[in-house]
């Protein structure tokens, strides 16, 4: 009985053809398939993508370089011996004047030039106040006041 059912269903499936498709319709399907031929389209797309990426990348780099030249600060870098920016000097004027006269002895550290660390005043609750002064490669002064135990940077570029 089960075998007959199976046979009947198999025959039914095989004898019930889906609606016919005309040659013209097959041709239309093929033309759509051929239009998406990966061997003809994909490499071109890949090349176009790579070119677009390269163009964007080099434009970005070029623009960055151009902008860094164009927007260079007009004020000259502070000469040795100049004081820190006004806000900084106002804030710390009641403590001690920064002594930047010895910048020639400073060292280069993390891309900063003439890095110097000075002690500002006595220790408070075991912490001393320090001032780090330095210059960026383009001459912009950097002043950083901070509390700490002992200065750990030495002029030899290592740690004490």
């Amino acid at each position, binding site marked *: 009985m089960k075998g007959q059912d199976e046979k009947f269903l*198999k025959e039914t499936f095989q004898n019930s053809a889906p609606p016919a498709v005309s040659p013209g319709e097959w041709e239309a399907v093929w033309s759509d398939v051929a239009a998406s031929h*990966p061997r003809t389209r994909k490499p071109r797309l890949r090349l176009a993508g790579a070119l677009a990426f390269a163009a964007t990348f080099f434009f970005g780099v070029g623009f960055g370089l151009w902008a860094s030249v164009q927007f260079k600060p007009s004020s000259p870098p502070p000469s040795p011996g100049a004081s820190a920016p006004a806000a900084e000097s106002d804030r710390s004027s009641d403590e001690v004047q920064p002594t930047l006269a010895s910048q020639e002895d400073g060292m280069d550290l993390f891309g900063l030039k003439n890095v110097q660390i000075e002690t500002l005043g006595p220790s408070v609750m075991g912490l001393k106040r320090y001032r780090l002064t330095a210059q960026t490669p383009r001459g912009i002064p950097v002043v950083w006041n901070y509390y700490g135990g002992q200065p750990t940077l030495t002029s030899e570029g290592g740690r004490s």
Partner: protein
Amino acid sequence: MAIQPVSEAREDQLVWFAQKGDPRAWRALFERDREMIYRVAYRIVLNREDALDIVQETFCKAFINLHRYEGNEDWRPWLRTIAIRTALSRTRSVSRIFRRLGRRIGERESEQLSASGVPTALEQIEADRLSQSLHAALGRLSPRQRAVATLYFEEGLNGPQIAATLGLRPGTVKIHLARARRRLQKELRAFQPEPEGV
């Protein structure tokens, strides 16, 4: 040495040439297997236009991924697997839409069929009626049951082969097949010849 026409080339030869980018081999593969893909897709989506779309999508996917095809497996099962998964994915998305509208695609297809089939039913030969009934019966199955039934009854695959094609466990295939069989038998009982000796 005589040059072998593309139409007479073996399947593995065609696939090899297609992998090398020969458009004639592509065309020959398309012409050889399009009917099989169309038949399987139609049984699952129950719609002629969708089935043709699936044929197109299947061949596009196959040709794009041809570099992944390895000669140690058969070409037709590989292609059929792509077709069935594409068809099932399409029915899933279509079903979701109809489910939202409160209807099931299978029921909708059956309703359309029964409505359109009545006026011409008397003029049709028995085979056409059976074919329509099969279509309607398939419409009452879930897409996965349709896929299992098609692979089993039409393509002649066994349980483990169906499981591999659909990415299911053999036990799950067994359940789907049993349900599909029961349903199809019920729907097509009127056409089934009486058992001998009854």
